[in-house]
């Protein structure tokens, strides 16, 4: 197992390395440059040239890339032009905020997705199944940024039960309760689509398993229905659902871009959007690198968990 994990981690290195080159090239290819973005209306060729020199952007592209790479090996991701602070500080702070949001959403969508999937499989073609399928369909088709705005309108503006934006209260607060209070609406919004996907797949997987002979045997043995479903059927259905949850983890982090913008959650998605529009190359590089590394890691974790659950894969 350890050897397998090590092999997967080593295989991820060239992927990440290639990714940094691609990001660097794309950022170099898109028109506009940080100096123009900073100077705006005042971007005369003279001012742009002077600022580029001050920012170290007058060097050749390969030179810039290798300087970046060299610094990376020393744990230095450079300094953001637009934020005037070390990229590493910003990226880690932002990424932990995204992890809190995406992690909570992932837990929510796993719980609700699995439960909904099981419920509709057990009552196939019954009312529960029909209602759950309808809800799942609505969930999958709802644009999450729109849902987010509706929730803000309902729960923050009208009912004033939850804050409209941010991660902590602006004065006081700062504890876990405060965080959960701020987390409720964005995490719920972010989990809706993934809940639908997981529910549908759980339903399919469960239906497959429930038809198996050993389930009939278990029932024939006189086990209670809940024991049959959760102990026997669900455990093997989970094996095919786990990789989907792993993929959803990636989607949830991707989807966080919108949700972070709508709820002003200080995560890495909204940071990247801003960094790209201001051509903040180093910030984009640092952010993409961390997100990609997390993606690789999540898929690895999903694979490992699957292997642990399914003896056939060992």
């Amino acid at each position, binding site marked *: 197992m350890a050897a397998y994990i090590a092999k997967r981690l080593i295989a991820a290195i060239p992927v990440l390395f290639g990714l940094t080159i691609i990001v660097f090239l794309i950022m170099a290819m898109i*028109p506009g440059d940080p100096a123009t973005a900073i100077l705006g*209306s005042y971007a005369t060729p003279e001012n742009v040239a002077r600022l580029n020199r001050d920012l170290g952007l007058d060097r050749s592209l390969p030179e810039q890339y290798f300087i970046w790479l060299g610094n990376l090996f020393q744990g230095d991701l450079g300094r953001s032009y637009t934020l005037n602070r070390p990229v590493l500080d910003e990226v880690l702070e932002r990424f932990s905020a995204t992890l809190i949001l995406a992690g909570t959403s992932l837990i929510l969508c796993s719980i609700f997705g699995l439960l909904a999937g099981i419920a509709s499989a057990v009552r196939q073609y019954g009312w529960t199944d029909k209602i759950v399928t309808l809800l799942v369909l609505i969930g999958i088709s709802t644009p999450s940024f729109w849902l987010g705005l509706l929730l803000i309108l309902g729960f923050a503006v009208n009912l004033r*039960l939850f*804050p*409209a*934006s941010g991660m902590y209260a602006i004065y006081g607060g700062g504890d876990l309760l405060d965080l959960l209070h701020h987390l409720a609406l964005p995490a719920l919004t972010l989990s809706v689509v993934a809940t639908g996907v997981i529910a549908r797949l759980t339903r399919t997987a469960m239906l497959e398993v429930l038809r198996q002979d050993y389930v009939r045997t278990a029932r024939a043995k006189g086990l209670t229905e809940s024991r049959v479903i959760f102990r026997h059927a669900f455990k093997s259905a989970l094996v095919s659902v786990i990789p989907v949850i792993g993929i959803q983890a990636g989607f949830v982090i991707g989807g966080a871009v919108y949700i972070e913008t709508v709820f002003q959650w200080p995560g890495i998605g909204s940071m990247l959007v801003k960094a790209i529009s201001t051509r903040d190359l180093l910030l984009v590089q640092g952010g993409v690198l961390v997100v990609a590394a997390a993606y690789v890691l999540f898929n690895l974790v999903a694979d490992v968990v699957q292997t642990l659950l399914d003896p056939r894969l060992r």
Partner: protein
Amino acid sequence: MRKWLTAAIATALMALALAPAAVAQTPPNVLVVGQIAEPKSLDPQAVTAVNDFRILVNLYDGLVRYKDGTLEVEPSLAESWTISEDGKTYTFKLREGVKFHDGTPFNAEAVKFNFDRMLKEDHPFADTGPFPLAFFFSAVEEVTAVDPTTVEFKLDAPYAPFLSNLAYPTGLIVSPAAVEKYGKDFGRNPSGTGAYKFAEWEPNAKMVATRNEDYWDGAPELEAVIFRPITDANTRIAEMLSGGLDIMVEVPPDSLQQFKSSSDFTVREQAGPHLWFLILNTKEAPFSSKAARQAANYAINKTALVDNILQGTADVAAGPTPPAFAWAYDETLEPYPYDPEKAKELLKEAGYDGEDVTFYVTEGGSGMLDPVAMGTAIQADLQAVGMNAKIETYEWNTFLGNVNPGLEGKADMAEMAWMTNDPDTLPFLALRTDAFPDKGGFNSGYYSNPKVDDLLEKARQVTDQSERAALYKEMQKIVQEDAPWVFVANWKQNAVTAATVADFKLQPSFFLMLQDVKKP
């Protein structure tokens, strides 16, 4: 199975109940301001965005500042000044007994340090930049601390906008001791002489400034001001409606009505030194002809643009100088009326035979208001007089990269907007022959009129305000007649305040002065 579902629902409900019953209102005597973005830095010399200026003017003072409600300068850290006969030496008498927030004294040496840091590449703290707007002071040759309360600026040529540039945030004075202490991180540990002291900056969440008890111009009443960055306009509105903000700036036109009709909020508007215009390519047909350029000015229904698309958040522009520069603005100037018939006649006179014109439109950008909708409406107006404009839309940075080098061979017209601090800036950088793109200026449409060049040069050299005003007024008449641009709109900035906020006023400079604001 049922039990499981019941348990899950109960857990979810408990999670909701966990939350405190109601969201707290903002506390008394603390003002929460909704900003449109995270500040880049709190080093006034390192930033370029109005969003940052709104904070900085409350933390720092300059030698001079804009008089309340105007764009005219008045004393601030300098009590008085004299200008030499040749207009090249400015001597400032400084206010005595003023201290920076870090306790070090404000004096002539501190002023010299500020300008040397920005302008001299060999200054020991030049590496705390870059200073993108340092060229505002590029005329400064030498700054001398004559004695602790006297500082002298030597310019390489007479430069009348110098005083209003000093009133701009790039001229705010920072504490040299704090720069020495924090180096490159000064922008996150700012120290000035302003009405509020920097207290805390939690990235992407809030920036807190507290009352400066020793403020030389009278300590403010508010205990603290909290600036919150909320980038999404809809979220900002929701936060304002739910009571999480006391002041919100840049309200989108669509939402203004909602706030206006509620007694919980006050909407304020103030015209600023902003101009939204179309650059016309005067080098190539059809706009090489003055008649065709005037035709475009007649053809476009500016009142409809301002009323329908911008929903009253702007006024119709008459010429190249915004009315906010009251002292330099020619009040007799009337905007080109909407007159499609006259436009058709003029196009005929220009010999225009219906060839397509290329129209650069941007998706967004600072001061560009609603550029796509405005571009489309303009296209329709031109179509109505027989001119077929083909729109090419670009993202803002790409757009600037296309427009700034000049329109020749690429486009016939382009949208543009400027916000400036002196009536000199925009025409000097964008209407002179010496400001053609290949000479490092912004005259992307290649307008050239020796008379205008002459007036603008002269206006820089005379230091008497009424003499300068006369020159600018003459320039405006000529430029309006020559029509190198289509003059469209002057933006009114707006802000919404909670009903509890008193004595708040928007300034034509677009800065957010909070010294006198009260919120019991």
